[in-house]
Each structure stands twice: as structure tokens, then as C-alpha cells.
């Protein structure tokens, strides 16, 4: 088991292994997302109160989930890189920041667009939306910090520390709906108990959430691989990739 962990530290091994299952991951992501989008747009029933604007949920909710989860991924990668001095973990952390920021932006944008026909306004300063905005700032802070240092290792350590300190904010975001009275939709998917959505509306949402998870993993891997090529460009194996014999 530890052998596998140490192998994981080798960028070359990681590059080759990930190259093998990347096409499958891409296929699964595309299939899930396309299925979810078509199902949600065309075949799921519309909401009694919100009409068709409710279909935005199929992008908004998965994006929000991944935006939150992605921060944990980034912080965890930073912690692993800091504790075990694993360069690969540092690369994953750095790759996770812009990806998480983009997903947070998507969540905010779809939320705003959903808000207009539903509650009459693009923006409302309720707890959940505001916390999402704060999450975006956390991501941007990490991205800005990662670009400020001259050495990669210092940069990675600094970002890891900041990400770990910011991790405390995440439960507060997640719990914010319980703590404040809010206009935002109450969380419809709880880990225990039945969801309060009609099952025909809920199934495409599950598909999309799954698809987004796969998409996240896909993009994270792609960016990590790019970073590996960049850093290891002087090694023989990368040179062989550039000029296959």
C-alpha cells in the first residue's frame, strides 16, 4: 500500500497511469453530462411554481457542490504536499485553484440568472449566495498568492497554509442555510432522509452531479499532467514524448 503511495509521488508514473484511464474518464464525463443536460432541459417536468427557469438547477447545484468540494480537494492536496513533501500534490493543489474558481463563478452566474425570473432580482445578499461569493474570493486569493512567490516550493507551502486556514470557512458556508433565514432554496438533497424534490426532477440532478464530479477529476488530471510536462521538460521521458522514436 505504501509502495503505491510512494509511486504516486513519481510524476512520470502518474503521467503514464493517468494517460491510460483519461480517455475513459473523458467518455464517462461527456456521456453523463450530455445525458443530464438533455434530460434536465427536455424531459424533466417543470416546477409548479418556478416553471422552466427551474431547469437551471441542473447546472447550478452540481457546480455549487463541486465548487465547495473542490476547495477541500485543493486544501487536502496542499496538506499532503506540505507533510510528505510531494511535488505532485503541490501540482494538484495549484491546478485545483482556477478550476474551483471557474466552478464557483458558474454557480454564482447560474444562480443570478435563475434568481431573476424566480425572485425578480439578479442578486440578493442572502447567506448562501454571499458565502459563495466569499468562496470565490478565497479561490482568487490562493491564485494570487501562488503567483507572488519566486520559488515554486515557497509558493506551494504558502498556498497550502492559506488553503488550510480557509477550510474553516467551508462548514460555515455549508451550514449557512440553517443559521440564517434566507431566500435561497433550502437544501433539497440531504444525506439522510428523502429529498424534497419530485423523483423525476431529482434523477437528472443526480446524473449531473455525478457527471460534474467526473468532469472535475478530468480537468484536474489534465492540468496536473500539463504541469508535470512543464516541470519535467528536461528529463528523458518527456523528451521521448516530444520526439517518439
Amino acid at each position, binding site marked *: 500500500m505504501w509502495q503505491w503511495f510512494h509511486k504516486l509521488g513519481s510524476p512520470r508514473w502518474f503521467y503514464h497511469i493517468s494517460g491510460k484511464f483519461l480517455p475513459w474518464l*473523458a467518455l464517462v464525463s461527456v456521456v453523463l*453530462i450530455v445525458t443530464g*443536460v438533455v434530460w434536465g*432541459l*427536455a*424531459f*424533466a*417536468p*417543470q416546477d409548479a411554481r418556478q*416553471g*422552466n*427557469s427551474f*431547469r*437551471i438547477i441542473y*447546472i*447550478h447545484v452540481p*457546480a455549487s457542490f463541486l465548487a465547495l468540494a473542490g476547495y477541500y480537494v485543493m486544501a487536502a492536496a496542499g496538506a499532503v504536499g506540505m507533510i510528505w513533501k510531494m511535488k505532485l500534490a503541490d501540482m494538484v493543489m495549484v491546478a485545483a485553484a482556477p*478550476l474551483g474558481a*471557474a466552478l464557483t*463563478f*458558474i454557480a454564482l*452566474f*447560474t444562480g443570478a*440568472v*435563475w434568481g*431573476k*425570473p424566480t425572485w425578480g432580482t439578479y442578486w440578493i445578499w442572502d447567506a448562501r449566495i454571499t458565502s459563495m461569493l466569499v468562496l470565490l474570493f478565497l479561490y482568487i486569493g490562493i491564485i494570487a498568492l501562488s503567483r507572488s512567490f519566486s520559488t515554486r516550493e515557497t509558493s506551494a507551502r504558502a498556498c497550502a497554509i492559506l488553503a488550510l486556514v480557509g477550510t474553516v470557512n467551508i462548514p460555515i458556508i455549508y451550514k449557512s442555510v440553517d443559521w440564517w433565514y434566507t431566500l435561497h432554496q433550502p437544501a433539497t438533497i440531504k444525506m439522510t432522509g428523502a429529498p424534497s424534490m419530485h423523483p423525476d426532477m431529482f434523477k437528472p440532478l443526480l446524473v449531473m452531479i455525478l457527471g460534474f464530479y467526473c*468532469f472535475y477529476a*478530468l*480537468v484536474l488530471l*489534465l*492540468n496536473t*499532467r*500539463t504541469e508535470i*510536462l*512543464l516541470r519535467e*521538460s528536461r528529463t528523458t521521458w*518527456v*523528451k521521448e*514524448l*516530444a*520526439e517518439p522514436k
Partner: protein
Amino acid sequence: MFQFENFDAFIAMGGHGPYVWAAYGLSLTIMAWLALAPLRRQRALLAELRQRLQAQRQRGQS
């Protein structure tokens, strides 16, 4: 089953069309870019590396 009477109704989305399509359109575009940009970067990196190696070899030979 298909929730709309015809394709026009599908696009119109009961009046919510601009919102739904704006949301989906921008989001899926961003996601596509997120997936494709690293692929393009990789290809550019390898091409650049190839050029550098060839240049090195030419200098070595001459």
C-alpha cells in the same frame, strides 16, 4: 416524455428561454474551455520542446 409541444416551445421555455439558455450556454462553454485548454497547452509544450531539441541537434552537428 418530452415536456414541450414543439421545438419552438422548447426554445422559448415558457418565457424563461433567455435565462435558461444563457445559464446553460455560458456554463457549458466555460466547462468546454476548462477541458480543452490544458490539452492545447500540452500540445504546444511538446511542440516547443521538439523544436528546441531539433535546434540543439543542428547546433551540435554544425
